[in-house]
């Protein structure tokens, strides 16, 4: 680990004043950043500890919830309001990492965690995220865990979060404090696709600090489910995950939410599939067509072609079991 200064922020404005300096990084739970610093992949010269800021979960006037960026992943998943109104989010968080890590990791840090691509972690490999213009050893390397949607020749890494996949499906808004004051960014617009600048992972400007995530009310809570397919039954990153929610009117889809994890450089909101289903009768053919609409641009690499079929099957099965499930009355 290279040397750094440590300071504990007293408030968001103070954090941003310190964080906007080049070389500074915000420290949440540290579960990803400390690991990357130990590997010298991250080399901040100052850590601004923001883990004690923004620690509450509050009701919003429209009946939603606002979750502070410093709340731990464990505390979000255990919150009774989250479990009742946003079970998708609780399930997604509980499917990720281990109990120990969920106790440390914050909401803000989960959103801004970096890819677990092995070549990103291996300083002897070429990686355009670590050294822009270097090339990508994953494209022709071991890429079983890599992206099938929205990738580029410069980068085929995936965003590893489960929580963000649920947030994408739930239309979450992210509150950002920055040098120019506070603003709101939709979660689905926060992460970028790699293009030819995969080192720039979000639309946030240097020094911007995530302070909260807001969940609007929705009609899908009673029929929603996060499903994660992985190589082990617990404590592994997703090969493919699906956050799905349905609101039905008879046999017709009134609202549908679908987001995919493990398939792209960002949490992937499946807008094409949603558009193919909204207002339609929920038949097997409609489900197959919706999955096809989303996955027709998908491209496999040497080791991950299986993900395309896997994603198709998990989408279809998730939505059809939600449609058949008796509505959970809470």
């Amino acid at each position: 680990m290279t040397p750094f200064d440590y300071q504990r922020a007293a408030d968001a404005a103070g954090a941003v004043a310190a964080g906007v300096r080049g070389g500074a990084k915000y420290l949440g739970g540290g579960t990803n950043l400390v690991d990357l610093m130990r590997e010298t992949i991250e080399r901040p010269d100052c850590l601004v500890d923001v883990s004690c800021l923004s620690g509450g979960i509050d009701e919003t006037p429209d009946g939603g919830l606002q979750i502070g960026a410093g709340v731990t992943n464990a505390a979000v998943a255990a919150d009774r309001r989250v479990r009742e109104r946003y079970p998708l989010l609780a399930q997604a968080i509980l499917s990720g990492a281990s109990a120990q890590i969920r106790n440390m990791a914050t909401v803000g840090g989960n959103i801004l965690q970096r890819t677990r691509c092995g070549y990103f972690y291996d300083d002897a490999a070429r990686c355009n995220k670590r050294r822009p213009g270097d090339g990508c050893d994953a494209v022709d390397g071991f890429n079983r865990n890599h992206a099938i949607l929205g990738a580029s020749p410069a980068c085929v890494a995936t965003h590893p979060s489960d929580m963000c996949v649920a947030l994408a499906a739930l239309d979450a808004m992210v509150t950002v404090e920055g040098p120019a004051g506070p603003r709101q960014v939709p979660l689905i617009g926060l992460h970028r696709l790699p293009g030819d600048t995969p080192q720039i992972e979000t639309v946030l400007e240097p020094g911007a600090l995530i302070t909260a995530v807001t969940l609007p009310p929705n009609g899908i809570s009673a029929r929603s489910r996060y499903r994660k397919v992985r190589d082990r039954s617990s404590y592994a990153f997703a090969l493919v995950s699906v956050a799905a929610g349905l609101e039905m009117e008879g046999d017709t889809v009134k609202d549908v939410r679908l987001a995919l994890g493990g398939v792209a450089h960002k949490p992937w909101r499946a807008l094409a599939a949603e558009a193919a289903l909204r207002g339609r009768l929920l038949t097997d053919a409609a489900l197959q067509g919706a999955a096809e609409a989303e996955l027709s641009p998908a491209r496999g690499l040497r080791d991950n072609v299986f993900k395309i079929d896997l994603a198709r099957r998990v989408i279809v099965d998730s939505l059809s079991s939600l449609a058949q499930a008796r509505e959970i009355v809470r």
Partner: protein
Amino acid sequence: MRWTINGAEVDETVDVRTSLLDLLRERLHLFGAKKGCDQGACGACTVLVDGRRINSCLALAVQYQGREIVTIEGLGAPGALHPLQKAFVEHDGFQCGYCTPGQICSAVAMASELRDGAPSYVTEDLTAETIDVTPEEVRERMSGNLCRCGAYNGIVDALTETYAPAAEADKREAA
């Protein structure tokens, strides 16, 4: 920098790069928490902070100033074993023993999460007031602690007997 460790006030000057694990082992010579992977994957370094389990290898000691830290040394001692330590002995919950301090710290926190009604990924009803301590729940909740000897069956038995004695008795009766 100051911490409360196993009930005692501790005052040490350390480099800000020092992990909580290195503080415990290298400075304070509390060798219970182990350095397995040093990257949060194995759980051998698990300790309790304000009653909650964390990976001390991923924690910077500086960030945990003022917090209450408990290691395996604070849970039991030779001649005064924690009930879970006795259960591990009784059920062969270890072979080499390297992962055991982390397993036991983790399990103590798991029990309090269950008492609080916190669900896991395998909990069917997320809004249930109480959650049964089933082997499936235990395996999911303990997945952050690896045992390379593969003593998992013994570990699950030790935890189930300690935290759900009725269920364990039923199982024995059925057998």
